[in-house]
């Protein structure tokens, strides 16, 4: 799907502006986001990027806390397996978040709200695609109420 058409569809939909937190690894995915920017690719401003040294720096706490404090979707993006700057970090990411993803689905969080993907520094297009894809799905699902702290106000 084209990124621009997709973005337009999102804009027209309704007032609901999803908040999506993306944990991006410093070496690949964050650079991928940079490339998406310098290549003038559109990806929505709803994505809030948090830069982490490695995708395995992300802890299950971070994901749950994001949902608790207002995120409608969470993305973890790291280097492709085999390309980790620290050699092995994303192999751990793969195991940890395979299990967390299934666990979140098991307790009833819609699967589209939590996404893990591998985005390299040269994949500006993929970065924009993944972000738009998640945003589109989360938009369809509507605001997240699950795991949300009721005292929290955006």
């Amino acid at each position: 799907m084209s990124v621009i058409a997709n973005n337009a569809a999102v804009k027209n939909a309704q007032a609901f502006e999803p908040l999506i937190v993306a944990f991006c690894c410093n070496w690949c995915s964050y650079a991928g986001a940079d490339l998406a920017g310098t290549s003038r690719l559109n990806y929505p401003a709803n994505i809030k990027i948090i830069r982490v040294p490695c995708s395995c720096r992300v802890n299950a706490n971070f994901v749950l806390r994001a949902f608790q404090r207002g995120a409608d979707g969470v993305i973890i993006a790291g280097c492709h397996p085999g390309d980790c700057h620290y050699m092995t970090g994303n192999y751990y990411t793969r195991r940890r978040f395979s299990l967390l993803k299934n666990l979140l689905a098991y307790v009833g969080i819609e699967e589209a709200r939590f996404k893990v993907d591998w985005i390299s520094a040269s994949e500006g297009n993929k970065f924009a695609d993944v972000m738009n894809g998640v945003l589109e799905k989360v938009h369809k699902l509507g605001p997240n109420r699950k795991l949300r702290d009721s005292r929290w106000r955006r």
Partner: protein
Amino acid sequence: MEKIKEEIRQIAREALTGKKVDIILAWEKGPLWYDSYPAFFTKEEEVDSLTWDSFCINNLSKYLLEETMADKKVGVFVKGCDALAFNQMMQDNRIRRDNVVVYGLPCPGMIDPDKVRAKRLNRGLTEVKQSGDELIFVTKDGEITVPAHEVYYDKCLYCHYPNPVVYDQLIGEKVAAETALDRSERFSQVEALEALSAEERFAYWDSQFSKCMRCFACRNVCPACSCERCTFDDDDLDILGKAREDSEDQFFHLIRAYHVVGRCIDCGECSRVCPQDIPLEKLNRKLIKDINALYGEYQAGLDPSTKAPLVTYQLEDADSFTAGEKGGKGT
């Protein structure tokens, strides 16, 4: 069990008088019929109150934490599941093996007091005797015989390791490892939940988690939850608040389950001690089921020299988030 109890007492006495150990960790009978609680014995004469019966459900391995047992030689009695717990704590470097003498006790299964009450067998109960696959409840009005599997804990019916997997000395005869229920059956409740829609699953877990009063009994009893300092206790970390708030309960339970992933021995102690009857084993078993499916069959606590699934990896590991793609270089 009566015979083994005498044997245990003898061993405990000898170990204490011979200065082989400083402390014996075993069970003692409390005032109520179902009370067989953990007890420390340091003197020979105290050993007379040591007990071994079908209510010794408490896992003694958890009491062996290094800091509690600093520089003391401890003799501990372990059942099958306690031995798995012991190995798990060894793997986590929470026990100094040299300081512990492990006495293995093959375990026929433990009685669930709730099931006894449901059958109204507790009225005037004075003694429970075991004969083969049957239990004889000696009450004031006479003896009642019931098949053992009707009153054993559910978790005991699935138990695959009734004989300790680690011990220095084994007491009594090994029992048959055949289970009353097929071991793969333990995942049937997980599968039933998986079959529901996301909304139904959330409704189910929300109703369960909101019962939680955060007493942390599940954490305290868990042999895998043995950190020196727990993040949930540390107010400065701002991990968990004190408010009665559903999201905090959900947060606690998801993190608790996730923290023991790959280290959970599936002893079911967490759900047993839960005062609110939250089915925590359904969370743990979901994670065990996924590990088995994604990274190969793994039973925590079998071998302390292996690595837990989450602290190791394979280059060609599967994942649950990229469809069909296995990852790895060149994909």
